[in-house]
């Protein structure tokens, strides 16, 4: 089992407990770290209360990501025998896991924001939940895919990626300076949502 196969298999057995999964996880620190992050997200999500629900924009973004992935509301056309657009997996190959990663990123930031709004988290807790650690979004993969599928747009994606990363850094520094600053937390959330949107758009390229 390679990394791609493991990430695909996590959709069915999410705790990495099958023999093949365990064998790969022992040998691959990258996948092992990914599984750890996913487990943390799942565990943290369980602690959410209804009153802590993220804004509708978060759910909207997740829904769009899931729809693109084909996990909800598959569309059929009069030409079922053909694929109207190149398939997602064909276009994205190993990078296709970035869609759920982007969706989970949004959820993770929501959890992070909630944690930040709680009274005085310990330093260790805050460090574990820092969204940068949870992102799992690989900018190089994104640019490589855009370069392959839409080379004319590569420069624009690079420039926008640079700007959005800059906005994340700035917002993160504000949060670090003053964790109780509501604007700073919201800016960080917005910045990550913008990055998630950039990934979604890149994946829609032909």
């Amino acid at each position, binding site marked *: 089992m390679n990394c791609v196969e493991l990430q695909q298999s996590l959709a069915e057995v999410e705790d990495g407990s099958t023999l093949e999964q365990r064998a790969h996880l022992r040998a691959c620190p990258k996948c092992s770290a990914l599984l750890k992050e996913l487990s943390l997200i799942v565990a943290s999500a369980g602690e959410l209360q209804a009153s802590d629900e993220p804004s509708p924009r978060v759910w*909207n973004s997740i829904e769009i990501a899931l729809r693109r992935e084909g996990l909800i509301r598959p569309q059929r056309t*009069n030409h079922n025998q053909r694929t*109207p657009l190149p398939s997602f997996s064909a276009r994205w190959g190993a990078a296709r896991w970035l869609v759920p990663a982007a969706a989970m990123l949004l959820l993770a930031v929501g959890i992070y924001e909630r944690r930040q709004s709680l009274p005085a988290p310990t330093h260790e807790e805050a460090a574990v939940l820092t969204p940068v650690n949870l992102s799992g979004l690989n900018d190089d993969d994104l640019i490589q895919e855009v370069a392959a599928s839409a080379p004319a747009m590569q420069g624009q994606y690079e420039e*926008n990626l640079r*700007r959005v990363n800059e906005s994340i850094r700035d917002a993160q520094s504000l949060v670090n300076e003053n964790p109780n*600053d509501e604007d700073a937390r919201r800016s960080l959330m*917005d910045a990550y949502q*913008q990055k998630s949107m950039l990934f979604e758009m890149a994946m829609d390229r032909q």
Partner: protein
Amino acid sequence: MLSKRGAILVTVTVIMAGALVAESKKELHFTVRPRAGVSVMNPYGSISVRPSPGNTVTVLATLHSDRVEVDNNQSGNRVDIQTHLLAGADAESGRVDYEILVPADASVTLHSSTGSLHAEKLHGDVNLEGPGAAVDVRDISDAHVHVKTMNGPVNLDNIKNGHVEVDSLSGDITLNGVNGSLVQVVSTSGRINYIGDFGNSGEYRLTSHSGDINATIPEWTSADVSARSVRGEVSDDIPLQPKTHTYFALDKGRAFAGTVGRVAVSSTVVLRTFSGKIHLRKRSEKQ
């Protein structure tokens, strides 16, 4: 022997004939019930949606080559239109331009990577998305309007009683006469320009990381306004009843907060940027 001028004429004629043959039109009609859903996915090319008088969705598609087709499906009260790129299609040969008529109460979802997106005179929900698409939405009432772009400019004009959300990375955003229960704009580096009265006792939130934010409002506006730029400047030409208690420091030139007009019917206006400038100004009578 063909003269030089004759040869050129023949060549031009052949090229034009080829172009005419390659470009084709397709017209589709669907009968729908009230509050239908219409979705158009178009990688390259423009999409324009206007209201139709009856209960019919009419699609006029201009295909720019024979390397592209238009697929369609009606499922219940939902119509899906999808551009189907054939082998070898690129941004030019894969281009399809759509003119679509829908019942005014239909909800529309439009997606184009590079073409312009336009919707007008509807009162169903409008969702528009495209990385490089120039977005123009006007004369919409009582509906959700959601726009997502990367660097395409966004222009919203005369949106009444809406629930408006715009997400753009670097495109400039202009809202003219836009009001509703929620008007939210998030941009990374694009400029945000709001011209209107912040009406409907709504929540208005305009934020950009590095883009400037300009809001031009008439004298009769009623709103609680707070503006804050972390690294940039803020300024206002309008007398505000200042607020003294805010959760952020009211550093002069970096932030202000106060009330314009009557508090009882006011909207909440939040203007935020990290390094851009914020300017709240009064609309002159001529505007």
